[in-house]
């Protein structure tokens, strides 16, 4: 079982993940329409690129009014996303497996830090979960799929924590952990998790919109 999830299944899920996100981006860009969207994407590409970069920059870093207005939520989401991306990518064990399979490797972070990051992801995830149940303005928006998607994202961390610390049935939990990771990878192109790439597309688009049409050529465009 381990050999299967670590071998062919991992390969399949990576393939689905990479092809999937590429297809998502290609579809997105192909579907942009200067007339329907009313943005001169190509004619004013210079203003567009500036606006797009500005829009992404202000949100990849907490340099926006939303963070100032909602520091707790935005703080939790920044923490959630940073840890969620960094910990698995720079984990020693993951990099070793990649090196073993594909012969490439990159710097890693100490396991202790990855461990805290994992706990941060779980804690922040719990916070995101709780506010969906508690806050009326979030509750009204929440659907079952929001919980499912959050669960898909959290599962690899919860199971990873159990497996790493060998809290119980090590090999079993290791397999579950890998499976959960693979489910997440596969889910990314098909669910709201597609914001993994579509966040950048959407932010770039609105940045271009403001950069080209709504003020970018005269004022500063929107000061996010």
């Amino acid at each position, binding site marked *: 079982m381990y050999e299967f999830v670590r071998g062919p299944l991992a390969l399949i899920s990576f393939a689905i993940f990479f092809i999937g996100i590429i297809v998502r981006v290609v579809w997105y860009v192909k*579907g942009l329409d200067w*007339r329907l969207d009313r943005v001169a994407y190509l*004619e004013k590409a210079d203003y567009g690129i500036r606006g797009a970069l500005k829009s992404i920059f202000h949100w990849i870093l907490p340099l926006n009014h*939303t963070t100032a207005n909602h520091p707790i939520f935005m703080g939790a989401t920044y923490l959630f996303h940073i840890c969620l991306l960094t910990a698995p990518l720079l984990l020693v064990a993951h990099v070793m497996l990649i090196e073993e399979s594909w012969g490439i490797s990159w710097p890693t972070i100490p396991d202790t830090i990855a461990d805290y990051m994992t706990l941060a992801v779980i804690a922040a995830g719990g916070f995101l979960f709780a506010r969906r149940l508690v806050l009326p303005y979030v509750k009204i928006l929440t659907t079952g799929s929001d919980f499912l998607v959050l669960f898909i994202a959290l599962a690899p961390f919860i199971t990873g924590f159990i497996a790493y610390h060998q809290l119980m049935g090590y090999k079993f939990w290791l397999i579950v952990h890998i499976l959960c990771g693979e489910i997440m990878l596969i889910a990314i192109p098909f669910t709201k998790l597609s914001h993994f790439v*579509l966040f950048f597309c959407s932010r770039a688009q609105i940045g271009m919109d403001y950069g080209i049409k709504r003020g970018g050529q005269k*004022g500063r465009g929107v000061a996010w």
Partner: protein
Amino acid sequence: MAEEAKEQIVAPLVTRVPIKTKEELDTLLADRQGRGYYKELDAFPVDTEALKKTLEATFKSRLKTWLKICAHCGMCADACHFYIANDNDPEQVPSYKIQSTLGELVKKKGNVDNAFMQYCMDTAWGKCTCCNRCGMYCPHGIDMGAMMSYLRGLCFSQGFVPYELKIGSGMHWVYKAQMDVTVQDFVETCEWMAEEYEDDWPGLNIPVDKENADILYTINAREPKHYPEDIAEAAILFHLTGENWTVPSEGWEETSLVMFAGDWAGCKMQVESVFEAMERLKPKRMVVTECGHAHRATVTEGPYWAGIKSGDTPVPTQHYVEWLLEVLENGKLKLDPSKKIKEPVTLQDPCNYVRNAGLAEVTRKIMPYIAEDFREMAQNREQNFCCSGGGGMNALGRYREQRNIGLRVKRDQILATGAKFVVSACHNCWDALRDLEEEYKIGMKWSFLKPIILKMVIVPDHLKPKAE
């Protein structure tokens, strides 16, 4: 009762196409407050096939992705003045307003009923002014105002549009203006105003259809219809600054109730009438009056409706405040500093040319010329709240109550500044402020820039009336 007789009207009031004849328009106008219209709408069927086709043709990448990746995080909630004004009512969360309308519509592939379309209409026009504020606070950059505007288009194509905007759209088709102002009416108003003020301003002239002028000035139909002195004030300021300017006899209407209505064909038709005036008269630039949505419709969105790939107007265009700042800075217009407003003054940033056209700093640079004690609202510039009268809402009887509730946010913003004088270079904001005072009586004054400036101008000797 008089109303009963009017309900005898036989012609259908509700249609899926714009009104294009004076007769149809008059029939609709005769239906006071749209009572018959809304009654007819209650039984109006949804053309689900057409709705499905429209979705297939126009619901693409940008909108699709916006709908898909909305994380349901709720950061848009308190960005909306309706959410705040309605005591944080969850049903006023912008994302909810979109998900429960456009989201469902897409999910059901247009297979919806009359009640659903009415819910869409009541949401698109009664709970949103398309001010685009929420989009600024969305981490994913989802512009819910733009989605709401798209929804309005879908509603209009199905005949589900508020009564006043069905009329507004019809006005544009019949008069190429949002009100029944004909070319003759307009030209005569200009002549009248020039005559009226000539004694005070010798040589005052409102040149109509002058070719190759430096400035082509275009306006809001309300001005010739209800506030002709606004045209006179503009003329006096152009006169004082020695500008070589003109107004077009046709294509003078900047505004676009068709945009508020979601009548995209009407938008194209209307804006092309202005662009034709540009091409006919070949001015160096165009200046638009103190109106927000007019600038949005003609300058920001207009070129796209007209199919201009660069997204630029045929000649460069400026909002009135840009021209005003220019002549204040280059000294063509001199103001008497001793006449500055002494009491505290605040500024209402119109969404359409501030958030949606980047002119926040322009009005701020004008303020020191006219006010001694300028006070910012707590949320200002691009962050400012809608006056609550945007997106056509001022005009809609059906949603007057909602509009008035929405005004509370603006009221509280103004009260917090301590100012009792609000400068507003936008017709919609101006109206909303007027209604705000009428509704809540906070004892404030509000004004366009032109009348304020005119009270302070230093008139060069050669332009003063000769003493008899």
